[in-house]
């Protein structure tokens, strides 16, 4: 099978060296104690922290791509999403497809009007759902999700899980999903990477 994301000897100040590969359509879970380096792994893959090693997307090396293009294709969604404008739609990609936005909003149970909502009045759960929608509108090939359901109730958690699964299937994209929730781990299934002391220690199949 082709490798969508191929990572060799990835190393940062507090991480690695580690190897990792994601297949198209695959959702791989990342787990580990707090402070073990899960977020650092995602940040390094999004090229937000200095790192060395070989990282390739569809066989194309990262260094051959402009940083802007890389981060659109390899989307990092932090646990606490950042909002800087006054209204939600100020945070969307300039040329986003309206139809795609409506489709995604429907999946996470938010109305079309939410694009015009004031950021000031969003709940943490709404921020998290809209943060995912905004990242998906860039049509990334790889999703780096750092506890994307941390602020959500079970119903909305399942919605996010379905939305991400749906996106991966439709776009043949892949995701790394950091999760602490044992039940969620069972629901999501697939490969589980355990990270400890900045290294990938166990690779388990669920």
């Amino acid at each position, binding site marked *: 099978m082709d490798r969508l994301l191929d990572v060799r000897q990835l190393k940062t100040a507090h991480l690695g060296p580690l190897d990792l590969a994601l297949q198209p359509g695959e959702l791989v879970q990342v787990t580990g104690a707090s402070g073990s380096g899960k977020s650092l792994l995602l940040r390094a893959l*999004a*090229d*937000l*922290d*200095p790192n060395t090693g070989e990282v390739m997307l569809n066989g194309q090396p990262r260094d051959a791509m402009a*940083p*802007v*293009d890389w*981060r*659109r294709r390899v*989307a*990092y*969604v*932090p646990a*606490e*999403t*950042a*909002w*800087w404008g006054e209204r939600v739609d100020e*945070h969307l*990609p300039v040329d986003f497809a309206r139809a795609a936005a409506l489709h995604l909003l429907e999946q996470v149970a938010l109305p079309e009007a939410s694009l015009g909502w004031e950021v000031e009045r969003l709940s943490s759960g709404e921020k998290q759902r809209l943060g995912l929608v*905004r*990242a998906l509108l*860039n049509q990334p090939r790889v999703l780096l999700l750092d506890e994307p359901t941390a602020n959500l109730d079970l119903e909305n958690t399942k919605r996010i899980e379905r939305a991400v699964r749906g996106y991966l299937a439709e776009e043949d994209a892949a995701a790394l999903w950091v999760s602490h929730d044992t039940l969620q781990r069972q629901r999501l299934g697939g490969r589980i990477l355990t990270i400890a002391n900045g290294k990938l220690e166990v690779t388990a199949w669920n």
Partner: protein
Amino acid sequence: MELISLSALDLSLAALLVVALAGLTVWARMGLGRSLLIAGARTVIQLLLVGLILQTLFDHAQLGWVALMAVIMLAVAGYEVMARQQRRFAGLWGYGIGAVTMFISAFAVTVLALTTMVGPTPWWEPQYAIPLLGMLLGNTMTGIALGLDRLTQTVWRERRTIEGRLAMGASWSEAVTTMRREAARSGLMPTINAMAAAGIVSLPGMMTGQILAGAPPVEAVKYQILIMFLITAGTGLGTLGAVWFASRRLFDTRERLRLDRLKAGRHS
């Protein structure tokens, strides 16, 4: 009109006012007496020294000496800019960004003014060159220091916003644009305020000095206008340049936010 020379007695009388004020603060237990006396003593010593240096410089008007004086002024101003940063760049950059942008802006504007507007012979005539450069450096220094300080503080505070923008596919420049605008504004505001209030709220120091020295008020005003425009141009150029260079330096070639390039200054 003739310049009335001040005698030692005149200065002593003025000094007596400061001493009296210091005595008053000691009596009122406000704890400012020592600071007032030390600062007063520094004023006397520093200004007398500068007076002597300028006198020597005027007596031996040579380009080399004027240039040496200019370089020393720049070196000190560069240090001041660095020292006023709460978070400054580590290594040579901490000094370099301020000093280089001041050199480019203040020196360029001074040379331009000397060669095209004021036009003394020779163009580096110390009586004109040194005070002009001094005023430009002093103001540019303040603008750059304010601008850089605001930039690094805001970027530090808003790092999540910046990385959020980067993660959404913004370039480093787009990600930092609001912080850069705020920093440039902060550096230029004092100069803009000074222009707007000139002559109404306060009589600018240089103009006051020229009038006291016997110059006709309208001549003094013309000089003041020239100086204010030069200061605005120099400060603006220097601040914009410094803020741009610094904001670029906060990101690496892969457009990652590199706050590790900053270190805490001595005031934090």
